[in-house]
């Protein structure tokens, strides 16, 4: 498995050798967790219902059976407890992977995340490292009740000391979760829950990209489109639909939300002169807004149109029967592309 970019520790465990196969995004994370747990005994999985049940999305399915109750912990029901004890475990040399059951339930743990997880390395002048991964199924589109469809990534990107990533496809899911685990910095790992069961061909021989990098997915000269997590699929569909109308979209998957890797996006915008961002989160103080701010600063003389954002509204996430209106979709994206081209 020794991937070139993987800062993976030496191990006395047998290597985990996955085969070429079709996997879902959920399975990708499950396999990635398994690979990391096999590689290093200090990797722990902890959270609510992650043991026998395998998590409400079955992401940790089978892990407790194979690694035992001391490495896969069904914790008491308290997110502050999960994160707070992960801090102590990490100080003690463990690499905890915490599961937050749904996006909207991370907030009882927010204090520990922003006050301790984010700061101990800095306050200890580098002595303390907190290689904690906090996995968060996020985003909407699954017809859920309140608190189960939110996109809170910006809160964490706003906090120095935390890294924030989001995978968009099964293959990235497999590699990115491991890269996040081997990172010596705390990582918020946002999983697009409505994409959990989307499939892709996985070949372990293909090396992954570095974790802290964005990725260009299509080439085009007309409009640059930047998405991440659940909206990458929409951006790709948008590129296909636009192509039928003779418009070329250059699509990027951000992958890392903090730090942002916008170098390739700047290059693209210098070529296209136009940028549309797409994300489920409200736009107010969002990742999209940060991308827009940086692009206008770096690409000022190339811009032919203002950066346009396709986002959720600046409202609470609505009741599920109204989420279709709320969420970014193909129509909204193409509308923004047309507006951008109309300037």
């Amino acid at each position, binding site marked *: 498995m020794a991937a070139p970019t993987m800062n993976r520790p030496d191990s006395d465990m047998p290597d985990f050798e996955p085969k070429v196969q079709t996997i879902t995004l959920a399975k990708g994370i499950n396999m990635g967790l398994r690979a990391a747990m096999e590689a290093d005994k200090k990797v722990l999985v902890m959270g609510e219902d992650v043991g026998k*049940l395998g998590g409400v999305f079955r992401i940790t399915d089978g892990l407790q059976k194979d690694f035992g109750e001391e490495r896969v912990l069904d914790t008491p*029901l308290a997110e502050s407890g999960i994160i707070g004890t992960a801090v102590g475990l990490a100080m003690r040399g463990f690499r905890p992977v915490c599961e937050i059951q749904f996006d909207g339930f991370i907030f009882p743990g927010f204090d520990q995340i922003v006050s301790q997880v984010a700061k101990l390395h800095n306050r200890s002048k580098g002595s303390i490292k907190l290689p904690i991964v906090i996995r968060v199924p996020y985003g909407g589109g699954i017809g859920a009740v309140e608190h189960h469809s939110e996109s809170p990534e910006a809160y964490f990107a706003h906090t120095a000391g935390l890294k924030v990533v989001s995978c968009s496809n099964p293959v990235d899911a497999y590699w990115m979760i491991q890269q996040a685990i081997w990172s010596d910095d705390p990582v918020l790992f946002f999983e697009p829950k409505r994409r959990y069961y989307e499939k892709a061909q996985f070949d372990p021989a293909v090396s992954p990209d570095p974790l802290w990098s964005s990725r260009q997915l299509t080439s085009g000269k007309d409009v640059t489109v930047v998405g991440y997590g659940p909206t990458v699929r929409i951006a790709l569909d948008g590129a296909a639909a636009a192509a039928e109308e003779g418009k070329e979209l250059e699509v990027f998957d951000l992958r890392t939300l903090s730090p942002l890797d916008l170098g390739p996006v700047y290059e693209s915008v210098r070529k296209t002169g136009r940028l549309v961002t797409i994300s489920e989160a409200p736009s107010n103080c969002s990742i999209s807004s940060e991308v827009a701010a940086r692009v206008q600063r770096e690409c000022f003389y190339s811009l032919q149109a203002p950066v346009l954002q396709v986002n959720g509204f600046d*409202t609470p996430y*609505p*009741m599920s*029967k*109204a989420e279709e209106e709320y969420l970014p979709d193909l129509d909204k994206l193409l509308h923004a592309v047309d507006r951008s081209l109309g300037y």
Partner: protein
Amino acid sequence: MPPPKKKAQRATPQVTKADVGAPDAVSQRPSPEQVIAGLRATSEGGPDLVQLLTPEGERVHHPDFDIDISPEELRGLYRDMVLVRRADREANSLQRQGQLGLWVPLLGQEAAQIGAGRAMRPQDYGFPGYREHGVAWCRGIDPVQILSMYRGTDHGGWDPQQQRFNMYTIVIGNQVLNATGYAMGQKFDGKVGPEEDAEATIAFFGDGATSQGDVHEGFVWATVYNAPVVFFCQNNQWAISEPVERQTRVPIYHRARGYGFPGIRVDGNDVLATLAVTKWAMDECRTGNGPVLIEAFTYRMDAHTTSDDPTRYRLSDELEAWKLKDPIERVRVHLVREGLADQKFFDELEAEADDRAATLRQAVRDLPNPGIDNIFDNVYAEGSPHLDAQKAEFQAYLDGFADSAHGGGH
């Protein structure tokens, strides 16, 4: 990062109790099996479990808690339980038919909820979790209002200030602090005392919730301010897949003592006992002796929600054993054996339940879908020009589909 170390291969030296000098602490620490046995010690009855009606339908007496109840009132409690169970089963099948996004069944917890709900006075205020359909019924809330949230047409469903029953709270434990604050307000407003219209608050939460900081903080606040709040914990033995012993080493009602207020375990499948204990607790609170913790010992007979598959984590034996303690059946047996209800009563109730179920099925289908007003309005009490503009922009975008061939083409 340094490579993980191999575990040292050496024999662990035998340490005796005398060596560590803490014999009792070590010897008294319970084994996991002892913890489980302790948590369930009273599930078959016993002095620590308040019970007034046995699973066999036999009326028993308790030295501290008893209740005078007329046959009519007893039939009323039975009717409540039958109707809420029927609505619950109806909602469960509506979810299966795709009419609801999710359902959270109350099956098995009817007595705990009706006992607690009927112990409330109109002036009292309740703070539910997300499973309190029985209490909601007692507060006069139409089941379709509950279903609207699970269908996804509404974020709440009823006017909490009018019903004096807050909207459901999904974030585990949050409502316990909110309830405590409300109770503090009742006290600050001079509504605690001997008067008939004195008020109390009741907060509902589960066994899993007892691990949340918010719940502990609620206990602390309530005791520091003598807040008139009853903490009503339905210990249904499970928090999704986690059994109660993942949350505690001592029975939940024992915890109250550490905070300085009374904790009582009641047979949560016994509507009479739950009613008696909750009435007492609410009166303690409204007269200035709050707070009180009640642990209603019960069982979640169905899945956690319609999204859950309990066969992955619990044995059906357990369910079978709890079926023998069914909260409704014991009242039925009692009513029949004591001649307190005739067949006509049961037949009429059955017919009423059928009628209400049919009405509910139709009402759910008739729930209007939310429009964009529901998204943008009432975000701020003082309104928001920014959101007004966002709404107008979105409305214009939608209108574009109607009159532009281009817009709809995508």
